[in-house]
């Protein structure tokens, strides 16, 4: 099996991807959006060309808006992010954006989140993340509860967990990168995407590992001597097509969702896309080769 034989190359590739993701995470950082931070998000467009952003920013300042950001969106619109509005600011908003009727404006979306709701959501998101991780940990422990030779079952679980970590770090790093260039912010949909990736990806790894153990058992029953690397490689080959194909159909639908689907779920589908691909990659190119490496290392001791 090529992947097992050249596993060191794939380890290097995986390492590079993870380091790149981590660098992206630390350099660009993840920025909480209105959902989590509280504040105001306004998406608006102009029917006859948008006014200059400097000018618009000036009139927003006059109206008492502070620390806001204005980003171009679409052909003739902007996205405005600001703190919580006062009643007077809210009342004045459409007048300010239209330059007192000079540029007819359509407010497509207006979201205001109070600081307490933001905090509550942040807590809930954190709890959800911890809960999903915990449940999946239990799930892995359950899936690998039977002891097997020559690698003990907790190592399978540990490696599955490492693969899972990879599957989350990569889309997060990607999202930080995306945020730097398009202004995408961490919202509830992003958290949803990460949790969905966790649920989807863990299983791919488990399937390959299950097959490894099934083949080990068959070898034992038939008294067949086979190198562990050989068995692992054979198992990987048997599950390779199904791993790729199950992800492929999901990738197809996500690609369609990204290119054709609603604008509000575009970042979401992109995050999922990266996560699902990372998940499939890790179950094939990281998990099983790692298993072989660990087995070699333990035997060498």
């Amino acid at each position: 099996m090529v992947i097992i034989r050249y596993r060191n190359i794939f380890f290097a590739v995986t390492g590079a991807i993870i380091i790149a993701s981590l660098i992206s995470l630390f350099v660009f950082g993840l920025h909480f959006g209105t959902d989590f931070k509280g504040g105001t998000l306004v998406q608006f467009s102009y029917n006859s060309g948008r006014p200059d952003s400097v000018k618009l920013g000036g009139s927003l300042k006059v109206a008492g808006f502070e620390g806001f950001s204005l980003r171009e969106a679409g052909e003739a619109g902007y996205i405005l992010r600001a703190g919580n509005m006062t009643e007077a600011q809210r009342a004045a908003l459409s007048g300010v954006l239209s330059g007192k009727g000079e540029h007819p404006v359509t407010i497509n979306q207006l979201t205001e989140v109070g600081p307490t709701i933001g905090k509550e959501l942040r807590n809930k998101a954190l709890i959800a993340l911890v809960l999903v991780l915990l449940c999946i940990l239990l799930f892995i422990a359950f899936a690998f509860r039977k002891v097997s030779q020559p690698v003990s079952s907790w190592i399978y679980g540990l490696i599955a967990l490492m693969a899972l970590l990879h599957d989350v770090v990569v889309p997060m790093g990607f999202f930080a990168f995306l945020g730097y260039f398009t202004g995408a912010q961490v919202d509830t949909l992003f958290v949803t995407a990460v949790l969905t990736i966790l649920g989807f990806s863990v299983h791919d790894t488990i399937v390959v590992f299950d097959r490894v153990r099934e083949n080990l058992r068959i070898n034992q029953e038939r008294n067949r001597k086979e190198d562990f690397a050989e068995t692992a490689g054979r198992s990987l080959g048997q599950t390779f097509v199904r791993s790729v194909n199950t992800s492929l159909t999901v990738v197809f639908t996500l690609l369609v969702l990204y290119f054709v689907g609603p604008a509000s779920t575009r970042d979401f589908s992109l995050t999922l896309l990266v996560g699902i691909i990372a998940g499939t990659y890790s179950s094939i190119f990281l998990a099983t080769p790692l298993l072989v490496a660990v087995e070699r290392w333990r035997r060498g001791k």
Partner: protein
Amino acid sequence: MLQKRLIALVILLIGTGIGWFVYSAQVNATRPFKLGLDLSGGTQLVYRADLSAITGSDVADSMASLRDTIERRVNLFGVSEPIVQTQRGGTLAGKTEERLIVELPGVTDTQKAIELIGQTPVLEFRMLKGDVPPADFSTSTVDELFEAAAITGKDLKSAQLQFNQGVGGVPNEPVVVLTFNSEGKKIFADLTKENVGRFFGMFLDGVPISVPVIREAIPDGTAVISGNFTPGEAKELARNLNFGALPVPIELISTQTVSATLGDEAVRDGIMAGLWGVIAVVLFMILWYRLPGLLAAIALLVYIVAVLALFQLIPVTLTAAGIAAFILSIGMAVDANILIFERTKEELRAGKPSDEAIHEGFSRAWPSIRDSNISSMITAVILFWFGTSLIKGFALVFGLGVLVSMLTAISVSRTFLVALGIEAKTGITRFLFGSGIKV
């Protein structure tokens, strides 16, 4: 074999029937899909109720009264199908917060909606100008019919539901007892003395809630309203009077407005994405898995109509995130089929006859299918709990999708595969059962 084929035919017919049901329910608008505000356009306002002045047992009552009051206001505004509901939110450590969620489909002027709802309920008392109450109190004639009374809602201390025993030969008649405060007692005594026989109107936000007649002078500040109340009506009146007089202050904590055009766009894009998603998956399945792939594609269509019917029946409020979940689930729905077909192929390669290979394929792939669905369900359930309405929409659709697809992918495609009863021995059938780019 005949039986198997009959079942396959029945599944096809039921699938088509459900498809027709979904289509006609949508077109004739008998049971159309329920769209969330981000798809239909509209405004959602979330308020926090300040219940610091209200003790434990009255919380539920005052929230119900608040909801009724706001609902009445919203209805005055002429919004079609508004939703006003209370919700208990909270951060952590048992600190809860009573909230009121107002959804106004079609209203895109946030400011106007806030102004309408933002006021606290006002209880007013007015005297009827004439002696005969009209049959119908429509709000447009209130100002013509009534004049201001000397007493105001602030003077009312409390209203209580009681049962008046034996008065007028009617036992156990429910009545509402009003108690005025010390200042109100004096005003009310004067008012009743001067106006015996006249009608006394009580208004909540300008809408009459009760117009009793003053029978006699009431010097002690305790008035009894009796009439043809059912206990429920009397209770509601007492509640309205109480919380109209003691309004619950509300504070706006979040708003969300989506324009109808943006919503329409999202719906259109969502439908397009759904169509292309199905086409992509179906093409892939047929090109790669050939005959079994075609059957999986049919099972996928059965899955789609079944889930759409569930959306209409439950009904599930669809949001953009929900549509994304549905499209995602289309890609995941065939996963079970892929697992089964890959396993079947292995069994065929090992030299087993087709029917046995199919059987083995299904039974050996099952643990794997079960596990993958469990891990997805874990996520769906936790997401549903985590949920803001946006995420709940995603989680519900995702969870439903996982469950239904497990059923259709396994049972429907298996029935079809067995019903065909093709033995993969000769060239053409070998090809049909083959997969990938090899012949």
